[in-house]
Structure formats: C-alpha cells, structure tokens
C-alpha cells in the first residue's frame, strides 16, 4: 500500500448494510482489572443473539489468559462474573484450572442462576447469587449507551479462525494472520503484521483508526466503510494508519506522515 492512497474497492459510508453498524460487541469473555483484583466476565446468555458453546467460551478464556499474563501478579484474586450462564461443576473446574495455570485464583463466583450457584457452592467456592439484570428483558442491549471499555492489550498471534471482539480499543502485540479478525468499538493497533480482518469503530464511530506496523489486511473496516487490500503487495512496508477522511473515504497513510499532518476531526474523537 503506498502512502496516502485510496484503497481500491472502497465502499462509501451510506451504502453498507446496517448490520455492519450494529455489531453487538459484548459477547466475549473479558478480563477487567478492579481495585486489587481481576474480574472475569462471561458473556451473558440473554445478551447475545449468538449462542456461545462452552468450547468457544473456554477457548476465548484461554486466549485471553495466554495473551495478557504480564498484567497481574501471581496469585491475584479473580471474581468470576458468570452472569446468567449455566455452568456445571466440570465447567467451573475447567475455568478454575485455566486460571490456576495463569497463576490466578477464583475468589468468588457471581451468578444470577440458581443451578450455577448450587454447582459452585457444591464445588466449594464462595458464591453470590445476584438478581437478574432488568436490561436483559428489554431485549435491545445495543441501544443502551455503554461507556467504552478499557483497552484490551494482548500479546499473541491472532491465528486463523480466531476472532477478538472488544467494546473498546484493541492493541495486539503480534501478528493478525489471514483468517483471524479483530472487531473493536474503538481503535485497533497491531504491533506486527495485519493480514486478517480489522474492523474499528464497529458501532459506527468513523473517527476510529486502524494502525499496523505492516498493513496487508484481507479487509479493513472503519465504522461502515470497507476497503480491500490491493492485489499486489508493495515491495516495502511502513507503519501505516487507516482512517476515514473528511470526505468519508477510507484512506491509508504512512504513520510518519499521518502524525505530521494532523486531521482536524481527530480532536473530537469520541
């Protein structure tokens, strides 16, 4: 990709199907720091239209733990926010084992389901059974304006078939391989090669950017704009930034140039 070139096959903003804009981002396993400990938040069943199998959940958890184990001290306490998820004893043990491998300890399990609470108590954990969220009933979670989550920092290779979704900015230290994808409500930074799919501002924020040391994506999306990489890769790569120009076109600029010529609209980001 040459400096500041418009990618071929750029799709202007309004023509993209609305489904792109309504990415429901809240359905992946999340790890959140909170004073002195960690929260492990499982996606609520009622919140996601997609039915997560246990295996998928578990893989997400393992990837999160493998990709960010420098952020906590050994034996940090974890509060497991199981929400409305049904977990049996075997699954709770699997979660505990995975955490143990990353030198984390379950402190307490929070759940809205009686069965999960019983299973957790039987397995010997402290449990707190919570009331169901009222928002669950309203059925349209994406309309609740949630504040953007803290950035997700992962040190790993996003391999084929892996999808990272996060309701904030995502920073990957490593490559995003062909077949891998990152979908973020905020910006996407790839300290490595971006060869898969990156979708920044997936809930419609066209101020978001995608940055990579080496941009050779299968596809880039910002808000509802889509761009495909040119068929012929360039001879040399530079760190690049993809953004939506004031004319509403997805552009890519060399990072060095991008920083030197600030774009006016960059100020009122978010």
């Amino acid at each position, binding site marked *: 990709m040459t400096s500041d070139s418009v990618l071929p096959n750029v799709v202007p903003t309004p023509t993209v199907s609305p489904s792109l804009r309504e990415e429901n981002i809240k359905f992946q396993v999340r790890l959140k720091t909170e004073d002195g400990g960690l929260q492990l938040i499982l996606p609520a069943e009622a919140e996601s239209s997609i039915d997560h199998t246990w295996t998928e959940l*578990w*893989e997400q958890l*393992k*990837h999160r733990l*493998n990709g960010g184990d420098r952020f906590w001290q050994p034996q940090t306490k974890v509060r497991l926010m199981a929400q409305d998820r049904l977990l049996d004893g075997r699954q709770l043990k699997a979660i505990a084992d995975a955490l143990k*491998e990353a030198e984390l300890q379950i402190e307490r399990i929070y759940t809205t389901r009686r069965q999960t609470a019983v299973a957790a108590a039987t397995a010997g954990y402290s449990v707190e059974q919570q009331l169901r969220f009222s928002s669950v009933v309203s059925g349209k979670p994406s309309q609740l304006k949630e504040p953007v989550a803290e950035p997700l920092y992962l040190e790993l*290779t996003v*391999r*084929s*078939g*892996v999808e990272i979704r996060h309701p904030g900015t995502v920073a990957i230290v490593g*490559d995003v*391989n*062909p*077949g891998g994808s990152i979908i973020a409500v905020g910006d996407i930074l790839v300290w490595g090669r971006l*060869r898969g799919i990156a979708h920044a501002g997936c809930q419609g924020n066209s101020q978001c950017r995608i940055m990579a040391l080496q941009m050779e994506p299968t596809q880039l999306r910002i808000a509802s704009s889509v761009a495909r990489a040119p068929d012929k890769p360039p001879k040399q790569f530079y760190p690049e930034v993809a953004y939506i120009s004031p004319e509403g076109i997805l552009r890519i600029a060399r990072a060095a140039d991008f920083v030197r010529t600030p774009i006016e609209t960059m100020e009122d980001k978010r």
Partner: protein
Amino acid sequence: MSRIIVVTSGKGGVGKTTVTANLGMTIARLGHQVALVDADFGLRNLDLLLGLENRVVYTAAEVIIGECRLEQALVKDKRQPGLMLLPATQNRRAEAINPQQMKQLIGELSKMCDYVLIDSPAGIEMGFKNAIAGATEALIVTTPEIAAVRDADRVVGLLEAQSVKRIHLIVNRLRPKMVRENDMMSVEDVQEILAVPLIGVIPEDENVIVSTNRGEPLALADNLSLAGVAFQNVGRRLQGESVEFLDLDNNNENFFSRIGKVLRTKIF
C-alpha cells in the same frame, strides 16, 4: 517421562499418516520404545502404511469399552523391535469415544514406552479433539499451500488453547524447483505465518508413494532416499540433537556425497 506427541494438520491429505509412520520407525531405529496410535477412527490407514493390516485384532475402542486389555490390542512390528501400533476403530463404536477416555488410554500407553505418536484425523471436530486429548506436544504437518497453511494456523491456535505448548512444524512435499520459480510458497513463507519452530522439511519424493503401497515405511530402508533422510533428521531433532537442514536446493545426484560429508563432520 515419556513424550506424547500428536501429529496433526487441519487440512486432510497433507501427510500426517506418512509422517507418523516414518517418524515412528525412525525413532524406534534410534533405540526408543515407540507406540503409534491411529486416532483417525473410521478411516484407519496407519496399519496399512506400516504393513500391519493383517495383524490387527483389537482396536482402541475395545480397550476403552473393556473388551480387551491394552496389551492385547497392541500390534508389535516384527521388522523393528521397539515399534508398536494401537489400531483405530473402524466401526460405529468410534462415535462413542470421548476425549476423557482417550486421555486415560494414552496415559496408560505412555507408561509402556518412551514415545507415543498419535496420528490425528483431518478437521477440528470430535476426532481431532480425541486425538489431541492426551498429547503434551504436537507436530504440525503442512504442505506449502495457502489453504493448508491457513488450516494449520487454525489448529495451532486450538492447540495453544488446549495448553499444548510444545509445537513444532513439518513442511511436507516441498518442491525446491517450484519454490525457485516462485510457483510454491517457500519454507520461510510458511514459517512467517505460523511462527512455530521448524523441525523438518520433507521433499516431494516418489519413493513415499511406492513405500506406502508396499506397506514399508521409507525409514525402514537401508539405503535411505532423500525423504527418508529428512524423516530421520526429524527423529534426531526430536530427541534433542541439532541436525543441519538438508540443502534441498541442489540436485539429487550429489546429494549423497554431501550427506556423507555432513555425517563425517558431525561424527568427529
């Protein structure tokens, strides 16, 4: 502690079974006790490649159900003491086997030998999960093709999630001439995507097909062909030796003279 290694790929037909058979033979030749497990249930062919088909009586399923003891199901290779095979189940019983049972079976088997090599089926479904259940290491086999590498990448991700931490890469069916002419991915191209340490490069070699049909793994021959040497090198690297990678870029004619040289310099 014995090593439990699954040979897997994602994409089918890239050479998992060929690698398992030849590597097993090589490691046994190097003086270790090796058990090969055919975890490609329903489509067993490891026994065929090894030429042991007519000696299979029981399979993994009978052991799991408790119809026979593990020792009874194991087929010993008369040509190579130290090598044995746990055959795959071909009938519907295969569907009932789950990862937990496999893990237990493999654990038991590992007590009897130094190496357990598990040949896995293509894909990432139940059969794959069964195959990787007991493994602590993996050999990823891929051919230098985009589709195969993509699937291999997916499998590496899954293995990492399953806490299989020691993963090595084998690039199979490399054709140096095509690479030179830019018609095939190079080993470096493959490595760049997978970011997994390389343990072997096996060239495309007609002898592989001949040996498959005869039921005599290449690695059994006294005069090793190019692919045979490559397999042997994988075996040696696996046991911790550092062995130079073959220079596949030159013609076969002067290959053996160069091998001789390498061996000599290594020995003294």
